[in-house]
């Protein structure tokens, strides 16, 4: 019988085997958790943690009423991981059909690429939906920010545009690119085996700064629409309109034609994307006589009623004879401006002399940038008096031998309109981060510098009003408002002959309204109009059209009565249009019912109530809004309560400005908005 292993030995063997097994486990644990700890930890981190750069939302551009003019949204961009694409040619064909790409080129990229490969960036939602529906292997989406301009062409050169990489390439987008872009953030995201994130540590992105502009989108639209009409009728090469608040230099509108749509800038020539209002220079012509005459009046070298011999339209300056456009004899200084006599302006300029005239030119802001926050501003061309020839005083006095930008001319006229105080033009009203403020920021006042005395400015205003009433600017007369301004018709230099052209002109009109209390300054400039080319013929009507609409929009009270008893000009309403939409819009009968007056022959004919009916506004029986400026909040509130007006308050301190203006009539219960400040 074989001897059996003692039981104690079996137990010992079992224990030994168990000990070996435990030892092996412990050794393995030691290797994993001590020796390989760092390597395994970093591998786990790579698998589970991802660092993602978070783009900061680009700031918005808004108009003065906080209407978005430019804003960004996240849109899909489609890319491929080429090794994962199973059938490159078929995939390329299907994608190209949706995206409008070259299928062969796309297939080539997919076949040659070894990894990441962009297919199309910032595609539309519809394109993304169609591609997703295909479930193409190896094709993925990534969110990118895309810039949208919801107002299309309005203020396009001012706003600029943003390239595919999100960088500003023109206008305010370029000038404030760093502020608008903000600061990117970082996210450390931990993901599970399925790639779902369950934990993240975020270093928040700082959103870009948003800008509130002084631009009013409705004024901008009016300016652009009227400029487009003028371009269509005159076939001018280029046109610019600027609307400015003379009291503080705020730009309400800058319109250029031709212009472009920043949503689709790829197909636009570069020349169209520049803002001609600040970058293009031109010889201002007769508009510049405002500088000459105001300087002479301010230096007490002339008086508005002083008679000057215009020598029947001919004068010799520096050995050269300059002819007037008409043979004027004796004219008063005021009449020199009204009739735009070159000889008269030269004689006044000669009284000033080179240096003094140059000083006033610089005081009005010419020969230097205005400082408006837009890129590419030209300083214009003003030679110092040391480089003037004997003839220069004559040429400069009538607006030649000097090159200016439209914004400089608008600022000059604004200075005259604002009692002789020059305000640098402004385009930025406010800035903020994050959500827009709940209300429109206070207009605020900006300090200006005095160029001419207030009394001199008043005399200039009166003379400019005469230009409109009796002189070359008659087409700028308004209905219900007084207006003042100066026409300009400057010959352009022929680049071939280097002499002044007899065929190409720059027609302009710069003016303001109402004269008694200027609310707006408007400059209209048309480069090379065809056919009619005088400033009074082509630019002044544009001023009139814009001023009439903008003053009504801004609720500026009339300063002259509207003439009664005249026929209303309107076109009968197409019945079909009303038949479809009358339920949606109103229960009123069509406007053509009972009144079928034909349209007026000339658009400038004053109009009044139609005989068939009336739109009755009974606010004339209402309450005249007092002047609250300078009063405390308590006083203003008490007055409003006594008058039965609702008060809306912005800010603290003393009343700085109000809407509507003092003297406006309102019904009881109407709302007055008052801005307070220190």
């Amino acid at each position, binding site marked *: 019988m074989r001897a059996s292993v003692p039981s104690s030995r079996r137990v010992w063997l079992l224990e030994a085997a168990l000990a070996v097994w435990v030892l092996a486990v412990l050794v393995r644990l030691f290797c994993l958790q001590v020796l390989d700890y760092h390597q395994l930890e970093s591998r786990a981190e790579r698998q589970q943690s991802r660092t993602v750069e978070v783009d900061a939302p680009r700031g918005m551009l808004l108009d003065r009423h906080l209407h978005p003019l430019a804003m960004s*949204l*996240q849109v899909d961009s489609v890319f491929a991981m080429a090794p994962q694409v199973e059938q490159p040619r078929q995939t390329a064909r299907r994608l190209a059909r949706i995206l409008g790409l070259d299928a062969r080129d796309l297939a080539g990229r997919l076949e040659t690429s070894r990894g990441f490969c962009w297919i199309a960036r910032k595609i539309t939602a519809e394109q993304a939906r169609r591609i997703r529906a295909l479930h193409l292997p190896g094709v993925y989406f990534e969110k990118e920010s895309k810039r949208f301009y919801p107002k299309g062409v309005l203020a396009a050169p001012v706003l600029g545009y943003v390239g595919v990489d999100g960088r500003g390439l023109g206008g305010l987008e370029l000038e404030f690119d760093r502020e608008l872009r903000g600061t990117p953030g970082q996210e450390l995201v931990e993901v599970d085996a399925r790639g*779902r994130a369950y934990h993240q540590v975020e270093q928040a992105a700082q959103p870009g700064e948003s800008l509130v502009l002084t631009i009013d*989108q409705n004024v901008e*639209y009016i300016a652009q629409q009227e400029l487009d009409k003028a371009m269509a009728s005159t076939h001018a090469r280029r046109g610019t309109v600027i609307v400015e*608040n003379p009291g503080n230099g705020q730009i309400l509108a800058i319109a250029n034609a031709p212009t472009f749509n920043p949503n689709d800038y790829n197909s636009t020539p570069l020349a169209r994307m520049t803002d001609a209002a600040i970058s293009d220079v031109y010889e201002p012509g007769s508009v510049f006589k405002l500088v000459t005459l105001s300087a002479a009046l301010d230096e007490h070298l002339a008086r508005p009623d002083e008679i000057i011999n215009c020598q029947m339209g001919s004068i010799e300056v520096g050995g050269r004879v300059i002819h007037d456009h008409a043979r004027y004899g004796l004219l008063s200084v005021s009449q020199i401006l009204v009739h735009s006599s070159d000889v008269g302006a030269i004689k006044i300029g000669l009284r000033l002399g080179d240096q003094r005239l140059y000083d006033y030119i610089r005081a009005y802001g010419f020969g230097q940038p205005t400082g408006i926050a837009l890129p590419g501003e030209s300083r214009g061309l003003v030679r110092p008096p040391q480089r003037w020839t004997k003839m220069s005083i004559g040429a400069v006095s009538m607006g030649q031998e000097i090159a200016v930008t439209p914004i400089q001319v608008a600022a000059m006229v604004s200075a005259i309109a604002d009692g002789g105080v020059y305000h640098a033009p402004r385009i930025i009203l406010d800035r903020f981060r994050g959500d827009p403020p709940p209300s429109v920021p206070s*207009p605020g006042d900006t300090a200006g510098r005095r160029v001419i005395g207030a009394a001199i400015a008043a005399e200039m205003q009166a003379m400019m009003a005469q230009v409109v009433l009796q002189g070359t600017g008659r087409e700028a007369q308004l209905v219900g408002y007084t207006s003042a301004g100066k026409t300009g018709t400057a010959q352009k230099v022929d680049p071939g002959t280097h002499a002044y052209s007899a065929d190409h002109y720059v027609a302009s009109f710069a003016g303001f309204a109402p004269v008694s209390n200027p609310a707006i300054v408007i400059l209209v400039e048309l480069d090379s109009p065809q056919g009619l080319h005088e400033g009074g013929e082509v630019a002044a009507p544009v001023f009139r059209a814009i001023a009439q609409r903008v003053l009504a929009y801004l609720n500026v009270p009339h300063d002259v009565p509207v003439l009664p008893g005249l026929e209303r000009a*309107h076109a009968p309403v197409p019945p079909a249009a009303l038949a479809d939409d009358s339920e949606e819009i109103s229960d009123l009968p069509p406007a053509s019912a009972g009144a079928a007056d034909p349209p007026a022959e000339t658009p400038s004919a004053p109009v009044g109530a139609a005989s068939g009916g009336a739109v009755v506004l009974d606010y004339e029986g209402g309450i005249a809004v007092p002047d609250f*400026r300078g009063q405390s909040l308590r006083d203003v509130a008490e007055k409003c309560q006594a008058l039965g007006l609702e008060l809306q308050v912005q800010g603290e301190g003393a009343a700085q400005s109000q809407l509507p203006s003092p003297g406006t009539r309102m019904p009881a219960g109407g709302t007055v*908005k008052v801005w307070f400040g220190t």
Partner: protein
Amino acid sequence: MTDFHYRQFIDNSRVVRVPDPRRRREQRLLLAAIACLAVLLFGYAWQNFEIIRLGYQVENARQTESGLAEWNRALRLEQASLRDPIRIYALAENRLGMESAQPGQVEALVIPPQTPAGGGAVLASASRPAAVAGGVGSAR
């Protein structure tokens, strides 16, 4: 050589185990300690898993918030596009047959309130609207 083994039957049925209170107490304490340790370990594990679960919820909520914020921006953009003056004017002119008021077409008539002017049919009667927000404020 043959070994002889003698079997001796021992009856231990009358042997009674004497209770050992000290041992009992030690066993109970040991059990309680193990139970506490188990509770702590399970509690720690539960917390861990709960953190991960809540992490998923937070992440989902974050995605939802981000999506809603983006949707809000998209709606604001759409609103801005719909309020484009070019579009409004085109709708008013082409679809509704409206036109801009001609200069002087809207007159301020000096009449008592609530009384139609000139005896003609009143097409509309309205008070002057409240002040428009913004704009240039006072003219000077």
